């Protein structure tokens, strides 16, 4: 009897000991994560570096291998790159610029374009793409492919472009679009490489970038350019539509240090310069859903970041009117 009781008590100490070890082992990570939370916006100011560009790609690698619970957690780690990077950035930013100053600097559109290292097409400018669009029939989308994140998933599920193909998953980013396997209706489970190798598309619509906002800006723009180059190479005859990332609502934008409209605008502005007005066009759906503050109108959304199911049809109608002539 006595013996048994003592045994149990010892086991409790085993728990206490292992818990203490776990606790102190986790401590450095926690300190780093919480330290990074405050410095998060400084990420954008960070100089591009190879390590930063690699870390998201690594996580993409992990994601593609798993399913089920593990992948759900791993996928949601679009942000964790941020806290890891932030502390060193915080020290970079020795001038003592506050978060607010940083934000303010980002707002004027013309301060944004730090030119991407991607070689630009001829005559590229944001305006060139807005000219000369025409309205088309549904058959226009028979040979169209949409590549994107959850916003494109919404378009495939709740939109009414029945004939188009969709290569989209929630959490998709330029860092994992080349490694992710996606189930494309009528094609099957494929990687983008397999899909583009097996099919010929006349139009490729491409909307990515919001999941990447926590990563280094220049690395993401560069990677984005590489993915567009890759699509160009695999589908030489297709028209590529670079789609601006949908804004978030003002309330989300004002309270989020990463997923805010000044970061979205800055990124959209950078990718718009990839358009050449010949076979690469830039289209911006925000003109459809913005309110007067240049944010996603609260009336169209309940989660501040996606339009409600019923508005994807409106979006599709807008796409029909935005075909390159």
């Amino acid at each position, binding site marked *: 009897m006595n013996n048994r009781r003592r045994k149990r008590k010892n086991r409790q100490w085993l728990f206490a000991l292992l818990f203490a070890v776990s606790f102190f082992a986790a401590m450095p990570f926690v300190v780093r994560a919480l330290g990074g939370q405050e410095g998060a916006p400084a990420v954008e100011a960070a100089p591009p570096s190879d390590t930063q560009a690699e870390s998201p790609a690594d996580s993409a690698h992990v994601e593609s291998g798993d399913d089920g619970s593990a992948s759900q957690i791993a996928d949601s780690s679009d942000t964790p790159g941020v806290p890891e990077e932030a502390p060193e950035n915080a020290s970079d930013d020795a001038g003592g610029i506050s978060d607010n100053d940083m934000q303010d600097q980002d707002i004027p559109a013309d301060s944004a374009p730090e030119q991407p290292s991607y070689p630009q097409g001829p005559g590229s400018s944001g305006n060139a793409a807005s000219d000369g669009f025409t309205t088309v029939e549904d058959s226009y989308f028979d040979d169209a492919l949409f590549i994107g994140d959850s916003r494109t998933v919404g378009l495939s599920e709740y939109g009414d472009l029945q004939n188009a193909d969709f290569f989209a998953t929630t959490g998709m980013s330029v860092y994992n679009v080349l490694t992710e396997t996606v189930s494309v209706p009528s094609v099957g489970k494929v990687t983008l490489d397999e899909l583009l190798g097996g099919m010929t598309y006349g139009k490729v619509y491409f909307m990515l970038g919001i999941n990447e906002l926590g990563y280094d800006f220049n690395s993401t723009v560069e990677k984005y350019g590489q993915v567009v180059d890759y699509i160009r190479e695999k589908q030489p005859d297709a028209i590529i539509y670079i789609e601006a990332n949908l804004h978030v609502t003002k309330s989300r934008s004002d309270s989020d240090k990463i997923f805010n409209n000044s970061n979205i605008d800055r990124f959209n502005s950078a990718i718009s310069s990839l358009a050449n007005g010949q076979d690469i066009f830039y289209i911006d759906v925000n003109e459809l859903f913005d309110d007067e503050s240049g944010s996603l109108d609260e009336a169209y959304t309940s989660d501040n970041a996606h339009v409600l199911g*019923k508005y994807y049809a409106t979006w599709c109608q807008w796409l029909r009117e935005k075909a390159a002539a």
Partner: protein
Amino acid sequence: MVFSSLEFIFFFLPAFLLIYFITPWRLRNFVLFIGSMVFYSLGTLDQPEYILLLLLSITVNYSLARAMDGRRRGFRKFLLTIGLIYDFGWLFLFKYADFFLSGVNAVVQAAAPESSGIQPLGLTLPIGISFYTFQIASYLIDVYRGKFPAERNFIDLGAYISMYPQLIAGPIVTYGQVLDKMKKRTVSSRAVVSGLQVFIFGLGLKVLLANRVAGLWTALSTIGYESVSTPLAWLGLLGFTFQIYFDFFGYSLMAIGLGRMLGFQFPMNFRHPYLSLSMTEFWRRWHITLGAWFREYVYIPLGGSRRGTGRTIFNLLMVWLLTGLWHGAHLNFLIWGLIIFVFIAIEKLGLKSSLDRRPALGHIYMIFLIPITWAVFQITDLSQLGLFFSRLFPFLPGETAAVFAGDFSKYLSEYWYLLLACLLFCTRLPYRLFSKGHDSILGTIFLLAVFWGSVYCMYKGLNDPFLYFRF
């Protein structure tokens, strides 16, 4: 600051425990009081004045209770009335004033359509005010009733009211339940470890079940109810049914575990509510300390069930309207309370006894009824609520927009394993295994895995509600 955050687990709690345990026990209530004030101020950085409100509340009730000592009954009643008006006055101002004003405006506008109505106050609700108001009112009433003498030590009373383990989300502890421990308590290392184990178990329910299954309900609102298929509406509601349980139960367990680490024994707040056979039973198993409060301070003073059937039904109606309002100042909470009242009243008139005799029927009845009441609870906008019901019951009229035909199978394939885990944790089995084997090797492995998993999730999402929110 919530318990399920890295800040709390890795900084506040260890720092607090260290100071608490090196302090001689005579001063521990003081440490607890100060620690709770720090905890509360960390949670209300935007409204530092709310901490004064809490301190003032403690002071006023402390003084009123002291003033009752040795006075005549009439005077004591006068003091009690002042105290209750004071306590519930603040609660009304912060929680219900705008709801009341919108009601007044609706009436005024019906009479005089031209009038602009009164501007809403738009006050931010002080964290935990619903809970601490109920605790402090119970203290004053109990002193008035002579259950125990008024507390002479301000620190002891302050530590009881503000005690951070239960300050912001219960359980609602009455002073009588902790009085002895307030005066003298010992904490064995065994109790600290077992409190920690309970805390981790609760943390797991909150972070690994509630927070994750929450994505299902979020998805429904993101899509918009008009575009949700009927099967998905039910699946999402099932997800929410689990979410609200493990969120609240997990939080209560964490509170109980923390209490045990400090030498207290808090009352159990949930006892497998989803295994109930009737609404009556459900509310004896769900948020038990709230039900007990309403029973003790509203239902029984009104006469309980001793004044005939008509009066009993009326008393139940009062309790359930107030319970509904306690949960939130919106019309839907009143409707929610009314629905529960109707079912409890019907059960009281005879349905319950026949359900108790037929467990299978009771389970089926509750499997439908519980989620439906949660839908009314969760959707505060009445037109949205109507819309959601038209999805649950497609024969009801309601707007339908584009529905994605594969939505049910999509979300089922994403969430089935979580839903199964939730279902398992609604039964008694995991808790039996836990209480038997928490010190065994397997129990140790399980708890450490839960701790690691929870920390991992908190780390990845930084406890952001948008953890499972990806674009």
